[in-house]
């Protein structure tokens, strides 16, 4: 496929950096075919979420109608849902996701910085441990987590959910930040040392600002993972007033009846911020997830 592109085309592709070239560029026929195929795939991947929005906009008496789109649209589900305590659960989700993100920041930044800059005994073992936890999932050790936090008296607590989410997302943050810091020339810090800066001063004034894109990526990723986390929250919370959104949404599914209206309105509300955040870091996540593994 690639081989079929004539040399002249490649020259154009190389000069893509100039915006004016992009505008005037004539796309060859095969790129339009690729575009068509890619748009079809894109639509297929969006359809379930479009359906989620349509279902959320159905009036309660049309929820079981047999049509693609309802004859009337309403936003009542989006208003009505707040009277069910949804706001409280939304707040818990924010606390869990925000707290996990903060904890990951406090824990992963020093660890990533130090392992990138210093060779010390146990460094290899530590990085290996981090790589291993990147593969672990809380699902595999639910019984242990449940009994541990039961013995701490921490069931039904935001703190427990923060700890677990931070623990299982820290590995990604350490790896991506380690890669970012390693890429920053150490000479920059050494110059700061010569100018009389302390190690912490150099860290805060030189290295961290340069590593900021990596930090932001790691933090957004942690926030989204904690926001969407379901099974640990389902296990560690037992009452509707202390659970985050994912568990609340799950509770709209009863044994005999499903509250579809609230389920989808709530899902739409809780998905929108995530999609926006994810779009911001789209290109960087995989690089980070696979940092240290792919070479």
């Amino acid at each position: 496929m690639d081989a079929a592109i004539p040399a002249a085309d490649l020259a154009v592709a190389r000069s893509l950096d100039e915006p004016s070239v992009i505008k005037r560029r004539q796309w060859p026929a095969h790129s339009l075919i690729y575009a068509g195929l890619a748009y079809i795939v894109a639509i297929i991947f969006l359809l379930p979420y479009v359906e989620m929005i349509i279902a959320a906009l159905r009036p309660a008496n049309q929820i079981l109608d047999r049509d693609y789109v309802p004859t009337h649209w309403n936003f009542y589900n989006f208003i009505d849902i707040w009277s069910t305590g949804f706001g409280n659960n939304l707040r818990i989700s924010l606390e869990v996701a925000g707290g996990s993100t903060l904890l990951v920041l406090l824990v992963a930044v020093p660890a990533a910085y130090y392992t990138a800059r210093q060779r010390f005994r146990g460094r290899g073992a530590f990085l290996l441990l981090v790589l291993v936890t990147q593969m672990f999932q809380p699902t595999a050790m639910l019984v242990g987590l449940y009994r541990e936090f039961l013995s701490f008296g921490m069931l039904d607590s935001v703190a427990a959910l923060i700890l677990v989410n931070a623990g299982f997302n820290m590995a990604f943050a350490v790896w991506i930040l380690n890669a970012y810091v390693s890429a920053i020339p150490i000479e920059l810090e050494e110059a700061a040392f010569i100018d009389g800066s302390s190690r912490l001063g150099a860290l805060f004034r030189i290295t961290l600002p340069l590593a900021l894109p990596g930090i932001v990526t790691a933090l957004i990723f942690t926030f989204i993972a904690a926001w969407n986390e379901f099974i640990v929250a389902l296990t560690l919370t037992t009452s509707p007033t202390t659970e985050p959104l994912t568990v609340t949404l799950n509770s709209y599914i009863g044994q005999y009846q499903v509250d579809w209206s609230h389920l989808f309105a709530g899902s739409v509300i809780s998905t929108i911020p995530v999609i926006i955040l994810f779009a911001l870091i789209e290109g960087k996540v995989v690089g980070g997830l696979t940092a240290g593994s792919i070479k």
Partner: protein
Amino acid sequence: MSVSIAEDGAVARTRRRPITIAARLAPLIWVGPALALIIVVVLWPVVIMVHTAFQHISPDGFILGSAGWKNFVYLWQEPDLVPILLRTVIWVATIVIGTMSISLVMAQLFNQKFPGRRAARWALIAPWAASVMMTAIVFRWGLNANNGVINIMLHDLGLLKSFNSDASDWLGTPTSAMVWMIIVAIFVSIPFSTYALLAGLQAIPTDVYEAARVDGAGAWRTYVSITLPLLRPAFIVALLINMMNVFNSFPIIWEMTRGGPGHQTSTTTTFMYQLKQSYIGESAAMSVVNFGLVILIVIVYLRATVWNKEAAS
């Protein structure tokens, strides 16, 4: 405070060797919190889990003493266990194979230059960003026997005769339920794999392709003998991360069938969760078995990564 200690460490090394206690402790100050978090949240639960697997615990949570290997014996005696193990193997294998083959094609497509590529790539993010639970619920809604949009579509295409029938009740029969759940699992796994392979494709230097063109290699030849081999590291890591995710996958099965009817759509993960409700010891035994499988995947993962070459240096 950590400033002076860290600098002490640097100074101590330039002098002679009597390393001060402060210098020894310096790494702990930086790495310690992360280590503590891993120990509390990841390692300690494993210890508790293994310990629980050998305890006799009443359904209401009272510890009645040691159970020896009894929990494992009870687990083995579950009539559903062997089918569940077999189903777990099929579940992981079909989803991972399906995901990786579709992702190879999609990564190739989304790596081409075409107008609006960025927007099209963004659409791929949706299933990755939305929680798996919600995606599973939307599909359950779409498969509703009476008014699911998938059934409406099949009906309009003439493929489905009547609603509220056995034919439209996809999630009511184990086989068709498994097929749909596998489709959903592949759907939510594709974005990550595709992006991982895209990252791999972009890491391949273009001059390799130019050399191949000079040598007169065709598109397919170039793909098989250049792209695929160079994509191997990215492919293997994506494959293993996928295996781990799919093996631990819980929300899809839980939201679409709750593992039922009976345990006929359960995997070891959902079965472990169902056991937890009443037989904690036996559930822990199932967890330990699961964890053994997880460790196997991790070992393969570690061997496949550049760990030995790079990070340890």
